[in-house]
């Protein structure tokens, strides 16, 4: 069972998209390379708008890229 409440397939989808770089994906969705890395590592949960943009880059639906795990209890430093 995943320990993170929000997991994603961004790294896998980048690999499948002809090994797209983090910088390239970041440029296409308006984020820095470091933020894409943080999303992939589960250290940052993006806004809904950015999540949709990422899914759109790969031509996928949101739920195919990001997965919500209700039972997970990860430590969160809430930004709001």
């Amino acid at each position, binding site marked *: 069972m995943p320990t993170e409440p929000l997991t994603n397939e961004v790294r896998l989808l980048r690999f499948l998209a002809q090994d797209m770089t983090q910088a390239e994906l970041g440029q296409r969705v308006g984020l*820095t390379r*470091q933020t894409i890395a943080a999303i992939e590592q589960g*250290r*940052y949960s993006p806004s809904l708008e950015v999540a949709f943009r990422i899914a759109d880059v790969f031509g996928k639906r949101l739920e195919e890229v990001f997965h919500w795990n209700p039972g997970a209890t990860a430590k969160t430093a809430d930004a709001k």
Partner: protein
Amino acid sequence: MPSFEKRAWLSLWSQCPPYIVYFLIQGLMPTVFTTFLERIACLAVVASVHAIAYLVGLALMKRQERGEPLLLDERDRAIDGRATRIAYFVLLTGMIVVGVVMPFTDTGWKITNTALFAIVLAETVRDVLIVTGYRGKARLAH
């Protein structure tokens, strides 16, 4: 390393050493600077060292970045917002101590130095929280 984190490190390293020296002198050797002019000169030197170190570091950083503007994305803004909010409460607490309590218990330079300490502490807390926001393991949510 993100540009915003680099700036936080620069702010920490340019600010902390001179002010640590200043507060050590003021706290441990109160007889070194006694007159108003001596004390204000000491503060001016410390503030100048801080400003020069920061500006030189910033100029070097901008040269390294080849003049590209600092672009912040939503994660940078989230980290900044969280750090600034917590630092604000540190500053608020310091100002309450300085402006509400100390006028009845202390005078002169003790109040000035406590106010200065609160400002430096708040700024340091903000920089430390920015750095840990980028490096910490805890998940940051937008």
